[in-house]
């Protein structure tokens, strides 16, 4: 045995002995259906370590080699990485994976189980005061249940609101559309809900996972008990119906909306069929983790470990791909987590359901449509199964609604307060009617949508599933309610009630969060479920769509200032009014970060290549972060992957080798130090080649995962609410929807553009240095090259400075990106769309990347979305000019342009609103596509880092989504602080 191998063997033997001989450990090897059998191999890249631990029949054994049939093999960069794994917490081990010091081959879920088992032993050792490798025994002091109280609103949260008498053509009832007469103080129950939102730690809810696992354990997953293979659509539908029938009906005290996604006040929904099992190693620690702790009860942990997870540990979207395609290259690259990250393995449901249809027909009407389709002649078996599956799901929705109705009646009977009793009786009526029948009033419509929303989230992961044009779809119901009013007092009360209802709906939408392992803080730092709501814009026939409900939604956005729903507003130049745009700016100023604003014309130009009928294109909604989806008719899985553009640049600089992966994975495009690039175009082409290589692989992987969805996780309920799935008799995972596409988020545009410009200027145009010298400086992180670094920082052309050359370069790079993606088709037959936004991956990827020719130093964040570098200019106008002149046709999955503005001390509210309005309006006039403002100054952010307890509700925009500043990692917080700050 090789020396380094010995301690590994001894340690694993010790672990095995513990599980073999000590009941307190051995019990963890047991599931509700028998012993959990699995094996994990260990080796270093150089094979200095080679071991396997195997658990079988409740006994553990260690073999001094890597067994061929091991479920998974952990590959360590070197011996040190192995020791680090032992001495690090499971969360830190995940970070080691991000840094490519540890990689997993095979079944990653088995490795998670191994980490969990290991964490048990480490926990005991720590309990005895023994520390492995100086590991910190004391974790942070955050106790579960540590509740904060709602702070005084930070000073910069403004109260002043403008008033307007001006209305647009769609506003029928509001005399002051800005609704300046209302504030949160007028709605005491909303204040209490808001306090609960900020004071409640989320808790893992096992309900969904347990019920589904119960059903599948009883009825089989791949095959029925009879041995006959399951039709995936029917299997999913039966299980879903069982889940909905048995889901606990809950109505929160004082709420006007019935039903909850989970059984917890704020629940993390468990989707073991997608990413849920990533928390396996953290089952005992996640309630005390430093960032975004999430409670988990002992009972829940037990249910998950012994019942749910063992069932799913060999059933998973990603595993399916690895097994069917034998760990293809595209998956191997993906597993390094630095070139691309595919969220396709989590969900495909970044989309907008056809709520207008639900509101117009009710579930009964949709079932009638399915019945008609079933009754038509000559439908084949698969179509029949698919349609039957949809019906089963809709029956499940109805069952849940009726359970809620019964529960509301029961609560009403017990209620002593007469006012609340009336509300509960009304809720009982509503749930018994809606969503089965078409609603007639606003409260019925909102509750119908909410019940549908809960149901969709029981079927689909809560990542980016979005709500769509709520103002358009709810206006007819508000209109109907208002028409019934006879006196001014009744009308006032009706408006107030609409504000209250929409607020309750918003606060319901925050009752669940995505379940994220600790490592998620880097990739989707502080992100909520990102349930995008879209306001304003134009109607399908091109008229001004801004209506009473638009302004009611804006009032709610302003009053609550919560991170989710993610409010997006469409502004159509020439059609929407300045009054409306000014209100968007004001709400942004008051909330400090919301809404995100879009230029309808630019977005619709970007969609031209798809030849959508114009009335459908005009009906687009933002999805997840910012991305356009044709409402109710389109599966655009607009957040299918995060693509690191800089990885291709690093590979071009290193002849196909990626430095962090330490892997010669890309094509051999030539060595910089060998004079392989006589002119700039040669190097640009090398970049293009590497990028196209990564894109081809990412796309292939995404297609495999898409196929896995069609087998593992068809979605009959969502399919019944997306146009043409019923007529086609095809699940949306198989391409049943009218429109299909997959959307990419590309990260690092400004970094790649500026790097190209620096190479072109200093190496090729000015011949100031050789390419080899520049690469040398980059490889050494500009150590001993301070002067060159200063030259690059001060004299190179940059995107965002108004330089035509820089703008041309940015447009050229967006074009090759768009064209490369557009040349591929996804599993559902749709095109790939290209966007430039980053969630929090500009920080995550940046941390993993060396210095760049742009002058960016190793480990620093990339710029958020496609925002120019903070150092590019002192003038906001240059930034605005350049971003506005990017060709929208290369950005058909939208963009995130972040700017941070700070009103001068003592500036009047009105002047600040007017200044922001001037920038935003001009940006849109110049053709800019999307803009998101953070209205907060650096001192506030720094103070919030030092005193998080005072800033729990400080809302910020990352790239495409909102988060509370205090839920972000230090790296993300600093990135926000270092963004360019423009005084206004």
């Amino acid at each position, binding site marked *: 045995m090789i020396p380094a191998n010995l301690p590994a063997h001894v340690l694993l033997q010790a672990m095995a002995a513990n599980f073999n001989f000590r009941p307190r450990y051995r019990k963890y090897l047991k599931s509700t259906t028998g012993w959990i059998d699995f094996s994990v191999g260990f080796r270093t890249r150089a094979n200095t370590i080679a071991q396997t631990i195997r658990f079988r029949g409740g006994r553990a054994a260690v073999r001094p080699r890597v067994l061929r049939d091991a479920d998974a093999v952990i590959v360590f960069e070197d011996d040190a990485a192995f020791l680090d794994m032992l001495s690090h917490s499971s969360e830190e081990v995940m970070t080691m994976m991000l840094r490519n010091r540890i990689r997993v081959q095979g079944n990653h879920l088995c490795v998670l189980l191994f980490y969990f088992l290991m964490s048990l032993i480490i926990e005991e050792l720590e309990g005895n005061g023994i520390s492995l490798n100086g590991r910190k025994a004391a974790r942070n002091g955050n106790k579960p249940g540590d509740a904060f109280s709602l702070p005084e609103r930070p000073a910069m949260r403004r109260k002043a609101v403008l008033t307007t008498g001006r209305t647009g053509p769609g506003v029928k009832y509001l005399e002051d559309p800005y609704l300046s007469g209302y504030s949160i103080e007028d709605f005491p129950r909303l204040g209490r809900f808001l306090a609960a939102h900020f004071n409640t730690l989320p808790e893992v809810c096992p309900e969904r996972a347990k019920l589904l696992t119960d059903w599948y354990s009883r009825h089989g997953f791949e095959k029925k008990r009879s041995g006959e293979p399951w039709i995936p659509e029917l299997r999913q539908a039966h299980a879903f119906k069982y889940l909905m029938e048995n889901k606990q009906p809950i109505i929160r005290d004082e709420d006007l909306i019935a039903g909850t996604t989970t059984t917890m006040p704020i629940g993390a929904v468990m989707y073991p069929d997608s990413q849920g099992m990533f928390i396996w190693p953290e089952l005992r620690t996640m309630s005390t983790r430093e960032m975004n702790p999430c409670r988990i009860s002992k009972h829940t942990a037990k249910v998950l470990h012994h019942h749910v997870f063992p069932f799913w540990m060999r059933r998973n979207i990603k595993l399916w791909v690895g097994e069917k395609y034998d760990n293809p290259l595209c998956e191997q690259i993906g597993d390094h987590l630095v070139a691309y990250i595919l969220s396709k393995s989590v969900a495909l449901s970044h989309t907008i359901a056809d709520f207008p249809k639900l509101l117009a027909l009710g579930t009964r009407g949709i079932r009638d449509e399915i019945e008609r389709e079933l009754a038509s002649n000559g439908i084949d078996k698969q179509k029949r199964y698919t349609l039957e599956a949809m019906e089963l799901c809709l029956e499940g929705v109805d069952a849940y609604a009726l359970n809620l109705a019964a529960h509301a009646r029961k609560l009403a009977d017990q209620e002593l307060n007469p006012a609340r009793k009336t509300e509960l009786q009304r809720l009982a009526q509503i749930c018994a009617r809606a969503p089965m029948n078409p609603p007639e009033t606003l409260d019925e419509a909102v509750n119908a949508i909410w019940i549908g929303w809960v149901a969709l989230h029981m079927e689909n992961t809560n990542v980016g599933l979005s709500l769509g044009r709520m103002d358009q779809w709810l206006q007819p119901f508000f209109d109907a309610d208002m028409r019934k009013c006879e006196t001014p007092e009744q009308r006032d009360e009706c408006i107030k009630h609409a504000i209250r209802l929409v607020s309750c709906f918003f606060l319901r939408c925050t009752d669940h969060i995505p379940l994220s392992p600790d490592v998620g803080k880097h990739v989707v730092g502080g992100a909520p479920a990102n349930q995008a709501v879209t306001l304003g814009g134009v109607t399908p026939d091109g008229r001004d769509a801004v209506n009473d409900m638009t302004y009611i939604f804006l009032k709610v956005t302003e009053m609550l200032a919560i991170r989710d729903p993610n409010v997006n507003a469409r502004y159509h130049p020439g059609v929407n009014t300045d009054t409306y745009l000014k209100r968007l700016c004001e709400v942004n100023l008051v909330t400090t970060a919301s809404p995100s604003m879009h230029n309808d014309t630019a977005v619709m130009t970007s969609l031209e290549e798809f030849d959508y009928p114009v009335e459908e294109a005009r009906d687009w909604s933002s999805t997840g972060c910012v991305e356009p989806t044709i409402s109710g008719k389109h599966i655009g899985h607009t957040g299918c992957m995060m693509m690191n553009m800089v990885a291709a640049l690093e590979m071009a600089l290193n002849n196909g080798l990626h430095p962090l992966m330490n892997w010669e994975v890309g094509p051999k495009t030539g060595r910089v130090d060998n004079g392989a690039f006589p002119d700039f175009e040669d190097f640009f082409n090398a970049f293009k080649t590497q990028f196209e290589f990564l894109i081809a692989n990412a796309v292939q992987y995404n297609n495999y995962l898409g196929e896995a969805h069609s087998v593992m996780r068809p979605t009959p309920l969502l399919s019944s609410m997306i146009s043409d799935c019923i007529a086609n008799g095809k699940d949306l995972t198989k391409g049943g929807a009218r429109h299909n596409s997959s959307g990419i988020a590309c990260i690092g545009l400004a970094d790649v553009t500026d790097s190209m410009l620096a190479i072109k200027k200093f190496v090729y145009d000015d011949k100031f240095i050789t390419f080899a010298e520049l690469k040398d400086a980059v490889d050494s992180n500009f150590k001993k090259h301070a002067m060159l670094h200063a030259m690059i*920082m001060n004299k190179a052309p940059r995107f965002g400075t108004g330089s035509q050359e820089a703008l041309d370069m940015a447009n050229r790079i967006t074009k090759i990106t768009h064209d490369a993606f557009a040349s591929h088709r996804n599993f559902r037959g749709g095109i790939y769309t290209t966007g430039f936004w980053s969630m929090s991956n500009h920080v995550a990827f940046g941390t993993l990347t060396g210095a760049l020719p742009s002058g960016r130093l190793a480990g620093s964040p990339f710029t958020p979305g496609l925002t120019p570098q903070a150092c590019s200019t002192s003038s906001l106008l240059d930034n605005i000019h350049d971003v506005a002149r990017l060709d929208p046709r290369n950005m058909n999955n939208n963009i995130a342009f972040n700017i941070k503005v700070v009103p001068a001390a003592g500036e009047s509210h009105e002047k600040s609103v007017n200044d922001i309005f001037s920038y935003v309006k001009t940006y849109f006039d110049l053709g800019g596509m999307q803009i998101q403002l953070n209205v907060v100054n650096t001192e506030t952010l720094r103070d919030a880092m030092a005193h998080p307890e005072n800033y729990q509700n400080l809302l910020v925009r990352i790239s495409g989504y909102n988060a509370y500043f205090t839920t972000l990692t230090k790296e993300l917080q600093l990135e926000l602080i270092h963004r360019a700050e423009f005084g206004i």
Partner: protein
Amino acid sequence: MIMSGDSLIFEIKRNSLDDGPGIRTVIFFKGCPLSCPWCQNPEGRRPRVDISFDRKKCIGCKTCIKVCKKSALDRHPQYFIEREKCDLCFECADNCPTGALARVGRHIPVQEIVDSVVRDIPFFNTSGGGVTLSGGEATLFMPYASSLLQALKLNGVSTLLETCGHFDFDAFDELMYPWLDAIYYDLKILDPEWHRKICGVPNDRILANFERLHARALKGGVPVLPRIPLVPRLTAVKPNLRALAAYLKKHRVKKLSLLPYNPLWQDKMIMVGMPSAYEQAGWMPERDIKLCRSFFKRFELV
């Protein structure tokens, strides 16, 4: 007055929100007939090209020292540059990788300014902004300023002048006035002797010009907004504020602006190697500003 070919601009600042209504581009002229010790833009005082050194930007690469033919650099403990030796060849600035050494002031053809201004017209239009001539003192360069103003007006750009008021009225009336949309007119010290002592010139001409412009404004001419810089111990003293208030009231002025003291000019003095004759490090406390405002209760303060 300096003829057009000699005009010097030391900065074109875009996206200004403080030099008139809306979003504005401010053109800073180099050279001023006054010598107020609190001057906010001391680099704009001398009507000739200067060299500046910003210690905060310097990375100490010594490139400049190597290229300097006069051995004028790294010679002065505070200013870095020994300006008696420097012949303003700007070899050092051209080779400085960080921009720590820089030329202050250059002649810019009118068309070049117009080209850089027109790009921002969309911002002017949405915000009600435009171009502001500031300095230094733009009226030192009237023929040039005149061509510039006319070119801007041809492009539909709104124009505003910030002035100290020390100019030849007839020339101003002929060359600049017709193309201005607004004038911000600084009034500092009313007492003639005190004014001469502090600002270097008597104020009779300044006051006479103001009165004529204001009289026209009352009759529908170009609006004139008097602005009073509040400088501790110099302008913000009771007798002066009282006298200014009486003077303005006498001339039926309704609206004026008070500019609380801003200490940010002091670093710039060091950068261009000018000794400071006035010390006041901090910002003006809110209560002092309030006290100053109390002298102007009868006016609309903007």
